[in-house]
């Protein structure tokens, strides 16, 4: 287990260098808000390392795809005795957690007024295609024919420059007639008005008159106007579209495991029976929903059942076992460190729980593309019978995390968490509050 922790720590250091991330989490490393992305996180106060990976798979390979699947998993390790115990023989009490998740998501989008928006987009594409077709027809057939019909100036030296101007005017068909009339006026007003110019004026005038009667040009101009109207309408309309985010629903199953030494009490005089090794496997499963309410806020709720234990209520003690050997006139002492947990009994029982998280992203005006994620959360446990497990427990917390909008990287933060709000002897919040510093590293950033 120590090896795994060391590997996790190295991974985190590597991830830090590679600008790695995660969403909010409580003191036990859990979050009900699920978004695609992979993260590694370190909770320094809980000696907890966590790596998770969630991937969205759209139903269709289309950005507009409204539905899809989400799969993922989470691997977590924790040293119950804190970070320092990782490096001290005999004291290390490992806890591991492995979970897998599968579910689906639906993008929720609603138009405030009506469902006209998609139709407008399609109409715009159709209108554009027809306009392009008309434009090509004008370019390839109608304009060259009209020019040839009216432009009999082959023997006129100055006609080339006028012809170039006419062709340039043709590139802008919507204002073509206006441009040609302007060109005709300019030639008329020239100081030296010669025979070639007169012929050019006559040709341009005749061309303008013919163009006025060309149905294709009229249709082209009408389509251009329609396209402009559609563009304005779409721009206005898009502002009225209400986005309602994404709803993710999932099933998660996992197992928590821990190993520790249980102290059976002073009454036991034999070493082998006084401290017994206990391995506890605590499975859990849950159904949950994670809702991206809008671009800035998320809500997650899960309900599940877990094989709870009262490990948290056991008292931790550190012992030193000293044995002596006599070597001649000397005494050789051997000291063995033992960390053991004691209490009335180690109990496990199935119980139910409900967890909820909310996350709001607040843009930071001072730092470009940086956001502060405010995340209140609550954990409600409804355990089974007997001693420690028979009462309802409620835990609340507030987290604050930084997120880089450019890379989508959650960059860690802090959380404050109360212990049992329902505790009978709970008298002052300051005595039971937990403060955590979490560093989160993204292996891949969250992408909305």
């Amino acid at each position, binding site marked *: 287990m120590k090896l795994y922790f060391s590997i996790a720590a190295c991974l985190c250091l590597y991830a830090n260098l590679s600008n790695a991330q995660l969403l909010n989490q409580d003191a036990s490393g859990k979050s009900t808000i699920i978004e695609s992305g992979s993260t590694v996180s370190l909770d320094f106060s809980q000696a907890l390392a966590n790596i998770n990976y969630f991937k969205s798979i759209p139903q269709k390979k289309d950005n507009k795809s409204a539905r899809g699947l989400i799969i993922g998993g989470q691997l977590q390790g924790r040293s119950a005795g804190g970070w320092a115990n990782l490096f001290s023989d005999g004291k290390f009490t490992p806890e591991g957690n492995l979970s897998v998740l599968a579910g689906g998501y639906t993008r929720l989008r609603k138009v405030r007024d009506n469902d006209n928006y998609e139709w407008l987009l399609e109409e715009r594409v159709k209108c554009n295609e027809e306009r392009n077709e008309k434009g090509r027809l004008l370019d390839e057939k109608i304009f060259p024919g009209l020019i040839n019909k009216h432009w009999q100036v082959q023997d006129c030296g100055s006609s080339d420059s006028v012809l170039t101007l006419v062709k340039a005017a043709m590139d802008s068909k919507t204002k073509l007639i206006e441009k040609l009339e302007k060109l005709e006026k300019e030639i008329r007003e020239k100081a030296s008005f010669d025979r070639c110019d007169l012929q050019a004026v006559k040709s341009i005038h005749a061309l303008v008159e013919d163009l006025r009667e060309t149905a294709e040009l009229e249709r082209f101009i009408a389509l251009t106007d329609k396209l402009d109207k559609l*563009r304005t309408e779409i721009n206005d309309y898009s502002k009225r579209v209400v986005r309602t985010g994404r709803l993710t629903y999932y099933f998660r199953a996992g197992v928590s495991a821990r190993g520790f030494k249980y102290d059976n009490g002073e009454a036991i005089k034999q070493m082998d029976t006084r401290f017994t090794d206990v391995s506890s496997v605590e499975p859990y499963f849950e159904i949950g929903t994670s809702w991206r309410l809008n671009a800035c806020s998320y809500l997650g709720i899960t309900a599940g059942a877990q094989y709870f234990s009262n490990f948290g209520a056991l008292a931790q003690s550190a012992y030193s076992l000293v044995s002596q050997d006599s070597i001649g006139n000397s005494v050789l002492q051997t000291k063995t460190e033992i960390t053991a947990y004691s209490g009335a009994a180690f109990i496990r029982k199935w119980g139910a729980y409900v967890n909820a998280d909310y996350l709001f992203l607040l843009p930071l005006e001072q730092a470009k593309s940086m956001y502060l994620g405010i995340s209140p959360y609550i954990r409600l446990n409804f355990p089974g019978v007997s001693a420690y497990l028979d009462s309802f427990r409620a835990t609340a917390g507030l987290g604050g995390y930084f997120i880089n909008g450019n890379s989508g990287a959650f960059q860690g933060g802090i959380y404050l968490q109360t212990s049992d709000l329902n505790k009978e002897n709970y008298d002052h919040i300051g005595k039971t509050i937990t403060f955590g510093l979490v560093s989160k590293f993204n292996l891949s950033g969250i992408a909305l």
Partner: protein
Amino acid sequence: MPVVNVYYNFTKDRLIDPPIQIAFNAKPANLVNDMQSVDSYKGVVKNVYIDNNEIEVAVELEGIKSTNWSITVQVEILPRKATDKLHDLSTSPITDTLPESGYAWHAKVYSIL
């Protein structure tokens, strides 16, 4: 009516959704094929017809307020006759920020010459 090929390179902050549409003179890009990564799209839209040497660049996005996106557009004017030479690519970098969270359609007209 000049016909052009439009080469584009679109990048965005991760907190902007995948673009719903990128279009040049209303001709949409194939975003599925052009996706390079979650925050980058690169591709070409061929045979776009233009008037007045102007092209409308339309980007439909949604995401969180104050996030940034940019698109670089290069236009290749296609020869009208076989003997015409290809024009050099002209580049128009466009950058913008989502003014508010939610839905936004940004359509801008740029001169290609």
